[in-house]
């Protein structure tokens, strides 16, 4: 029985979509509401008749990525409210390993495991992989660690405070460390000289805090590369058609590698066919 209800619900949604997809674009929500209800109680075929209000389904939101934010209120069963996001462009994204959450612009929908159409039409759904503006996270990182990630590693002089601590305590075996080391050896400058001349007026207390934080500071290489490009890969974890928000988390580690591989495969295919 429960199975049948599920089926009917899907069917009603299906027919509703087909018959009144034009209504969606006009955005006539009032009429659409009644239309849904009417369709639901109509006879769908010889033997399936949906006679109860709780059996209804509504049209999918198909939240698009767009700069005029549109969120509609929907009254649902029990008098409760759902926020149906129709167009969104920002969300609250969290960087898990650093435990920071920032509101950022969503730039691009990049991958959807269930349907490529949703990528093409830039539809925001839970579980989609998007590209997100990296600026707020960059700013936070700078403020927290005193380090600017994503700067090109051309000259050592530009890397202000890259290693705020001394080389000995810096645990990163990056290009960074080698560069600085070579720079210092070559020019004969002492580390303390460059660090003093750079940043304006960080109080002693703040500097000590920054140095202490340097010890735990680790950054994944893939993420660093993304910061260089100004865009981070993130996954949507909320349901925009239900709560009206498009929040999520920044991909890291194994998950990030997994999706990057998928994206490269797609690009490879596109490049070979084009």
């Amino acid at each position: 029985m429960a199975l049948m209800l599920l089926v009917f619900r899907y069917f009603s949604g299906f027919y509703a979509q087909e018959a009144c997809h034009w209504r969606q674009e006009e955005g006539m929500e009032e009429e659409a509401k009644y239309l849904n209800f009417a369709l639901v109680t109509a006879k769908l075929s010889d033997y399936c008749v949906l006679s109860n209000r709780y059996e209804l389904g509504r049209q999918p939101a198909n939240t698009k990525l767009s700069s005029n934010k549109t969120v509609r209120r929907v009254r649902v069963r029990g008098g409760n409210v759902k926020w149906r996001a129709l167009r969104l462009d920002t969300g609250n994204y969290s960087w898990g390993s650093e435990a920071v959450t920032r509101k950022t612009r969503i730039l691009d929908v990049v991958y959807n495991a269930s349907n490529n159409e949703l990528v093409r039409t830039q539809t925001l759904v839970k579980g989609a992989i998007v590209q997100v503006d990296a600026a707020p996270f960059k700013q936070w990182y700078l403020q927290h660690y005193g380090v600017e990630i994503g700067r090109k590693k051309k000259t050592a002089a530009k890397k202000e405070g890259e290693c705020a601590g001394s080389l000995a305590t810096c645990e990163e075996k990056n290009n960074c460390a080698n560069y600085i080391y070579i720079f210092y050896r070559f020019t004969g400058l002492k580390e303390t000289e460059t660090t003093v001349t750079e940043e304006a007026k960080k109080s002693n207390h703040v500097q000590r805090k920054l140095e202490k934080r340097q010890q735990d500071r680790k950054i994944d290489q893939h993420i660093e590369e993304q910061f260089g490009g100004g865009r981070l890969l993130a996954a949507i974890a909320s349901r925009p058609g239900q709560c009206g928000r498009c929040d999520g988390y920044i991909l890291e580690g194994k998950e990030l590698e997994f999706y990057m591989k998928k994206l490269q495969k797609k690009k490879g295919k596109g490049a070979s066919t084009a």
Partner: protein
Amino acid sequence: MAEQTEKAFLKQPKVFLCSKKTGKGKAPGKGGNRYFKSIGLGFKTPREASEGTYIDKKCPFTGNVSIRGRILAGTCHSAKMMRTIIVRRNYLHWVKKYQRYEKRHSNIPAHISPCFRVKEGDHVTIGQCRLVPQTNYQFFMLLDIQNMELTSFCVFCRPLSKTVRFNVLKVIPAGSSGLGKKAFTAM
């Protein structure tokens, strides 16, 4: 990794994979983070569930289902589906007029976690869980009414479901029992 077989990244939602702090030591032997739980009612979590690497959200030990309601037992009738089996329960039904019994059976589909290895004929204990969809998808061809053309992508999938209500909790492998499936063992 062998377990990433789907198009989306499979992971246990309660486990955060990228934490900078090294594992506190649930000590599954591999030092990895794994979420598993005990399902109660005296059933032991198999070692494979706590130490393995599979991801199954419908597994009672490492996923998001709870076992409540009925606990039944039967034999595995067929194990050809992915992660689900058909459990056959035999029973005798009393026919009053002839004062005799007749053989009857019922088939129950049950979800089986990758931590169990089942063959046909194994005795199996299953527990009731919430409805768990075992989906095969039917693809719809969408007919665009305005343009009268067939846009043949799959926009809308209606699952052909077996919605399964049971989950395997324990497997008692039948040794090389002579008759196997054919034997009628009334429960």
